[in-house]
């Protein structure tokens, strides 16, 4: 349930943005959820609901979209997607779920076997945009 901690962080960001734009209201929050972290969206939404108490915006403004994880080898320049990674066990996936950088511990470039790769997209939770409306 560490999804709740990330959900709380998203709410904190929206609160800050709202404070910076006094008098505006939140119309939509577009959240990109990285595939690599394997966030359970239902649990994440529960976390949002818990942390939205007494906020002037509700859960309905949040739009969650999964961001596919892609990698590029720094050694041989090969690019690949998470779905093409074989052999990750439950423990390895759980470690990456907690801390996506654990991917560098358990994954290798499928081309040359190097652990020296870059995560190009789909790491974790980011806010793509916050749409604000006129005066409340």
């Amino acid at each position, binding site marked *: *349930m*560490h999804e*709740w*901690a*990330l959900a*709380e*962080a*998203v709410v*904190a*960001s929206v*609160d*800050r*943005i709202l404070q910076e734009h006094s008098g505006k209201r939140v119309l939509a929050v577009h959240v*990109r959820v990285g595939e690599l972290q394997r966030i359970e969206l239902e649990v994440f939404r529960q*976390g949002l609901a818990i942390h939205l108490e007494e906020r002037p915006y509700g859960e309905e403004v949040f739009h969650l979209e999964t961001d596919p994880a892609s990698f590029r080898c*720094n050694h041989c320049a090969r690019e690949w997607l998470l779905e093409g990674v074989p052999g990750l066990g439950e423990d390895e996936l*759980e*470690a990456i779920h*907690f*801390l*996506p*950088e*654990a991917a*560098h*511990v*358990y994954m290798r470039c499928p081309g040359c076997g190097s*652990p*020296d790769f*870059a*995560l190009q997209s789909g*790491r*974790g*939770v*980011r*806010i*793509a945009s*916050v749409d604000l409306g006129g005066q409340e």
Partner: protein
Amino acid sequence: MIDPRLDIIRKRLDPVRRILVFAGAKGGVGKSFCTAVTAVELARRGLHTAVLDMDFQGASAHLFLGAELGFPEEEAGIKPLRVGANLELMSFAAFSGERPVPLRGEGVREAMLELLAITIWPPLGFLLVDMPPGIGDELLDLLRYLHRGEFVVVATGSRVVVQVVSRLLELLRSLDAPLLGVVENMTKTSPQTEAKKPPQTEPAGVTGGGFGEPVESMCARFDTTVLARLPFVPDLDSRLPLVESLDGTLGREVRALADALTRGLAAPAMPPSA
């Protein structure tokens, strides 16, 4: 893209009264050892203490403390690993075990932000941050994101070490980072025996861990103090974990260090929260 973790880190650290950053710039000076013995002593005094091992690639705090690795418990975040009474730990090793962690700078930054954002610390008297060698990514990110850190710099009596550690002190001074003082580690003589000896004219060896002079001079140059002088422990491996082995000169010096830290000795005024 907005990184929401940056908006929650300050709140995550609210339950922490003081954050002490053990840094040393030079590898092998014993930052993890000094962090661990300080944590053990503070916990022994009943002060709830946690260690955050920021040395992702060379994590060793769990070895010094005898922590059992495993995935952290989840509770609206992740809980640090329980090491003993009043003593907790968060480390990349909880997720990697003893496997190698080949991370580039961006990965180090991401992992640091993630741990700071999702770790739910209990009310703590002290959070001790064990830093890796160098003045690169980890230190710069820590200075950027961990606003309340007070630095404890670790050195040995080696002139080479002092030269490298001086650069760290120079950087901290230029950034107005709060500096509590310097721990001289791996001393080969104790303050007591040193007082009985005639004045020392030979310089300390390059790897030697001598006693006093180079570190004293460095501290004088940077207007700071030696907080404690921890002795070289030749049988360190056989004394791990450290939880019950802080006796003799080591125990005495660690208590002196804890006294200094809990008194807030030389503690500069904290910069106002941004």
